[in-house]
């Protein structure tokens, strides 16, 4: 379990987080959403110990990430947004780092490379951008760490690859794993992520499971704009209205509409979600 308590963080003079507290529980695939520059990557880096909080604390299963203890590191993998590869084949790369991870599985790596349709014989720099990303994903997943952090993992993937991505992530997840996916391409991970976290400058605007969100908000698909909607957007064939869910109705979350509704009504929705 990841616990973030009263975290303050700033890069030089730019405040990124101000007194935020968050918890991440096992067995979930968290979606970390937010506009560019609100600190999605920074939050992942703080959880990985690549950055250190100025105030407050981050702990992962009771360990402090910034201490960089092997006990912590061997259970965590972070896949950065930017594709960083060595001048070698994915196979040689994973054999080099895999031995450090207790549940690393080379057979799984091969299976994932096949599933993701990556050419095993090629070196990283002979692969296309999307192929590189998939190869690195296969590497990351074959390490089988309890904590997996993916920063914009679907960037640069073609449409079939995005479906494969959802499949392999869903496959990866079990009761012991915590996956956090930071993204602004919500469509790519729409049915994969739950709960959702929406970050804003300095703050966490929303952290809720789909069940909690649909209890409070109703997503109405209809022919017209509704007056009391938090947010309305035109869709092909009508409008989607994000409404307060007063009648306890069930609806399907449209993450994009949710995101926009939250951004437009920061305080209102934050309060709405906090009320029991």
């Amino acid at each position, binding site marked *: 379990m990841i616990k973030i308590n009263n975290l303050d963080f700033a890069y030089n003079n730019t405040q990124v987080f101000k007194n935020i507290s968050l918890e991440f529980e096992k067995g979930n695939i968290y979606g970390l959403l937010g506009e560019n520059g609100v600190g999605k990557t920074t939050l992942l*880096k703080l959880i*990985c*110990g*690549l*950055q*250190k909080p100025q105030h407050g604390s981050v702990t992962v299963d009771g360990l402090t990430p910034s201490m*960089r*203890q*092997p*006990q912590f*590191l*061997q259970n*965590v*993998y*972070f896949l*950065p947004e*930017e594709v*960083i590869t060595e*001048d070698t084949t994915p196979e040689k790369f994973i054999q*080099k*780092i895999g*031995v*450090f*991870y207790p549940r690393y599985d080379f057979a799984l790596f091969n299976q994932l490379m096949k599933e993701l349709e990556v050419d095993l014989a090629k070196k990283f720099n002979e692969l296309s951008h999307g192929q590189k990303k998939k190869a690195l994903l296969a590497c990351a997943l074959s390490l089988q760490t309890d904590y997996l952090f993916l920063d914009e993992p679907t960037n640069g993937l073609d449409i079939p690859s995005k479906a494969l991505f959802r499949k392999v992530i869903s496959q990866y997840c079990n009761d012991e794993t915590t996956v956090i996916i930071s993204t602004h391409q919500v469509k790519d991970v729409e049915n994969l992520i739950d709960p959702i976290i929406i970050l804003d400058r300095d703050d966490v605007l929303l952290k809720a499971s789909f069940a909690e969100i649909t209890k409070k908000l109703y997503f109405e698909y209809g022919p017209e704009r509704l007056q009391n909607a938090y947010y309305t957007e035109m869709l092909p064939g009508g409008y989607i209205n994000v409404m307060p869910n007063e009648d306890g109705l069930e609806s399907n979350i449209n993450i994009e509409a949710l995101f926009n509704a939250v951004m437009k009504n920061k305080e209102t929705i934050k309060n709405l979600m906090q009320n029991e």
Partner: protein
Amino acid sequence: MNNTLNINRFGKILKHDGLNFFPNLILTLAILWAIPVIVYLAVALMPTNDTKDAVDAFSRVDLISALANIAIIIAPARLYRYCNDSRKGIGYAMLPASTLEKFLSMLIYCVIVTPIVYVAGALAIDSILALFQGPYEGFAVSIYFDTFAKINAVFQRDGIMLDESFMLYYASISPIFMLILSAIGTLAISSIFMFGNMIFKKRKTGKMLGILIILFIIFMIVVINYVAHNEAINLYFQQMNDDNKAEFIKNIIFRIMDITFYAEIIISALMLFGVYRKIKTQKY
């Protein structure tokens, strides 16, 4: 779980870094190995009329030692170039080994493996070249580790006669201690550039060299000023004449060697502590 030092895990990081060793350093080593060959060819192919063009083993030992130092200077930035890179260094930082294990592995490859691999290769090449009827006379390998013979040769070449006490002094020092002395020198150079590799993001070796040159100039100015204005030292030099010259020089050399030895230990310790801290706390 031992989070500081675990032999099994240390073996893994050694293997990991070892797999990176040749791919990253082979070009540097190859160039440095080629230099004695180029010297050999240049001397062999030069039109000559006498036999003075032979290069003796002592000179080649000096050349190989100097090139080994260059290898040591370059190695950290070649082997661990990206470990403080905010993007490319993430993999290194997240590698599940302790800071101490990563540090020791880095130390072993930069300070021990690099010079051993370079010197072994260079001596092998030297021996092959010496087998031919060419300008290389004698085998560098036969005297490389014989520090006493080397120092003796240096003094002879510079025309300084060694008196008996000097000879006795050296003879009293065990060869292992002499090896430790030169190892400390290697450690000092290496640790300075390991530190440079951790604090600079780009042009790591060049920046560190620049800083060293500037520090050296400042140091020389300070020392010369100090010596020139220090009455005790001046008085000491005034007492020097042709008869006691050897004794004087010997004392000065011993004094400088002492100072250098302690300075090297202090510098190495500071630099290595800095490297360790950077591995532990570097932000990405």
